[in-house]
């Protein structure tokens, strides 16, 4: 610490003297000293004066260049649309209608290509690959690892993920290009503000219903640091595409089975929707919690521009959203699913003392799983399915068949299986000791667990922070463990 207090003014006079004697030489330090002194002289309002000067000139120049020869427009279409889509009466119904439509088109439209892809990739290509491998004499363990493991897992992910995403993302992008989405953020901001979040989180959340990784990328439009991290961490509570099939299947088998057949469809659909709504509730609750605890010190700002409406260019939109979102997300999923397929095949087929590794793992996890109202198979499936939620159900079925020797599944044990018959699945799961509690808790756990590795990686890339990535991965998992544990204990206490 220097002992003498020196005044900036004295220093710079000294420099000026040196300037005169040494000729025109000014060092960077001189300049910085002068700047420091002048900065104190011009005072605090400098930045604002600068902005004011800029805008004054801009206004002057614009005023000279722009003329409006005709009368001002009589009818402002943008405003007219805005009045309707943000009105108290029509704002929310229109929004619900539009998004229901988008989801309905996605679900209805994806069904057929999904089945078609799966019968092609698994029904046709898979046996062909097997026979081709046998014909050229590939050793059994290698063809098992590559075809039963890597190929089958990848094929599963592609056939489940590709069709809905190829429909959902372009539809969403069309709404985005039209300019409707900022209005959604405008309408919903009030609710998000109360939980310490940004209205634009509505959109990353909506995108999360398609794919959480894409939802995390979509948080880029949130320009406030605190709210963006909140949106990233809570995106996982939006039930993604890869988890819908699990929810629908389990709801149909376990909850639909409780009521008469004519009610079954409605009740199981209601069960799935309530899980999705629960996810939204968790989004708000966790946002509220984070903004008041861990994220209290992060900067928070708000501004939301409502851009003019523009007619979307349909062809280009479809192409760009396919490239930007669908293919991008699919590629990442495949990259992560392929090794997972290999791991699943290995644990099911490599034996120690006559037993597959999977059996040891399941037996090890089983007591813990039962405590949560789940079982060892489910926990193991979630461990190996970290890369992609789509393969949870096939893995669960495969492991159950492997452990119980239940019949009715056409493929051999130790291979990811698929079947379209719910009765078969029920009998397999029944043999595995599943109850209604297992089904309900599986639905809860499917909502509340760590994001898939694609999403975790995306959060890391987008946030650039190991800390927030860890929170995003572990917080939902901890919540899932707590919720399933509490449900299981209460369930058993009440004795349903």
């Amino acid at each position, binding site marked *: 610490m220097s002992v003498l207090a020196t005044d900036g003014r004295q220093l710079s006079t000294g420099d000026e003297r040196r300037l005169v004697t040494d000729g025109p030489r*000014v060092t960077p330090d*001189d300049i910085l000293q002068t700047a420091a002194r002048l900065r104190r002289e011009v005072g605090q309002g400098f930045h604002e004066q*600068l902005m004011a000067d800029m805008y004054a000139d*801009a206004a002057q120049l614009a005023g000279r260049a722009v003329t409006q020869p005709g009368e001002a427009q009589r009818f402002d279409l943008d405003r007219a649309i805005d009045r309707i889509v943000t009105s108290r009466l029509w704002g929310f119904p229109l929004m619900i209608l539009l998004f229901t439509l988008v989801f309905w088109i996605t679900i209805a439209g994806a069904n057929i290509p999904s089945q078609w892809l799966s019968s092609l990739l698994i029904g046709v290509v898979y046996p062909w690959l097997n026979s081709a491998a046998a014909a050229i004499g590939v050793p059994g363990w290698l063809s098992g690892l590559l075809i039963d493991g890597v190929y089958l897992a990848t094929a599963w992910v592609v056939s489940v993920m590709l069709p809905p995403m190829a429909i959902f993302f372009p539809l969403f992008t069309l709404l*985005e290009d039209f300019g409707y989405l900022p209005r959604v953020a405008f309408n919903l901001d009030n609710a998000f503000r109360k939980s310490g979040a940004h209205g634009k989180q509505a959109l990353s959340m909506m995108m999360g219903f398609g794919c959480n990784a894409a939802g995390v990328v979509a948080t880029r439009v949130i320009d406030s640091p605190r709210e963006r991290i909140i949106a990233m961490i809570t995106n996982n509570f939006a039930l993604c595409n890869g988890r819908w099939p699990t929810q629908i299947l389990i709801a149909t088998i376990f909850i639909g089975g409780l009521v008469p057949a004519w009610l079954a469809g409605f009740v199981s659909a209601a069960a799935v929707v309530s899980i999705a709504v629960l996810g939204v509730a968790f989004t708000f609750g966790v946002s509220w919690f984070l903004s008041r605890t861990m994220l209290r010190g992060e900067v928070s700002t708000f501004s939301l*521009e409502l*851009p003019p*409406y523009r007619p979307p260019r349909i062809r*280009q939109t479809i192409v760009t959203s396919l490239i930007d979102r669908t293919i991008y997300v699919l590629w990442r999923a495949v990259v992560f699913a392929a090794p997972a397929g290999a791991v699943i095949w290995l644990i099911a087929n490599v034996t120690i003392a006559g037993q597959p590794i999977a059996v040891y793992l399941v037996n090890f996890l089983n007591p813990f799983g039962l405590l949560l109202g789940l079982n060892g198979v489910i926990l193991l499936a979630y461990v190996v399915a970290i890369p992609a939620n789509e393969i949870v159900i096939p893995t669960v079925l495969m492991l159950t068949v492997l452990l119980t020797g239940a019949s009715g599944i056409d493929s051999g044990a130790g291979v990811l299986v698929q079947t379209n018959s719910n009765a078969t699945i029920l009998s397999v799961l029944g043999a595995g000791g599943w109850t209604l509690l297992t089904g309900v808790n599986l639905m809860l756990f499917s909502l509340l667990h760590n994001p898939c590795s694609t999403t975790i990686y995306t959060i890391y890339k987008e946030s650039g922070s190991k800390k927030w990535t860890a929170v995003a991965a572990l917080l939902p998992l901890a919540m899932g463990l707590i919720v399933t544990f509490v449900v299981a204990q209460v369930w058993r206490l009440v004795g349903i």
Partner: protein
Amino acid sequence: MTPTTSDRQPPMIDASACAGCPMHNPGQLQRLGVDMTDWDYVIALAGNPNVGKSTVFNALTGLRQHTGNWPGKTVTRAEGGFVYDGARYKIVDLPGTYSLLSTSLDEQVARDFILFGRPDVTIVVVDATRLERNLNLALQVLAITDRAVICLNLVDEAERSGLLVDDRRLARDLGVPVVPTAARQNRGLDELLAAVNEVATGRFVGRPHRVQSQAAGVGRAVDELTAQLATAFPGLPNARWVALRLLDGDESIIRAVRSGELGELGHQEQIMLEVVR
């Protein structure tokens, strides 16, 4: 002085019918996509959010960058390339920002590229329907560099809402070429490329309009600092702007002054001028 390029432009209404067709290939444009080896000139693409910057970028490079109707879509910078008039251009799409004076990450990325990336030309895409708001950014870019072209985009929307923008008057006032375009319809891109080419090759030298501060004390302080900067870094093209940034306590500019990186900018500029002459 009068920018010749913009005076030569045909009025937008006369744009030929095939200009709106996506297959139309203006002039000698050859799109290169991401192939950007051995470029001759580097172009920066700046602009407010949601003014069709990415559309201009895609039209020039043939790339399909997503262009959502969402303010602040391009967060990282995208790069592409094209060939025009025998020269290879690399074009960098900067994040859309309202200003270059604040410290948000987007603005810093954009500002640093225009200042330290030394692009041969900076295209500022402005929205013809909201000229005043957009000129704010254009003026900030012109304070940094005189090698700029204003792309007056969305003139079709302006026409629809009954606004006429006098691009020649604007060009005269700003001292750099102003080219009216409607990038979604591929209108005006040929003229834009011609103007970019003129500035890149040095056939056109801009005399940009620079904002003078209104407050008396500020003016004096800026003058004093500008004089010192001009002595220390002769040939610095934007001493006045650097002085303003120093007074505003801009960390990266202070660092550039201290490290002497700023001096290199001036040096480069002098060499460029000599080559041009």
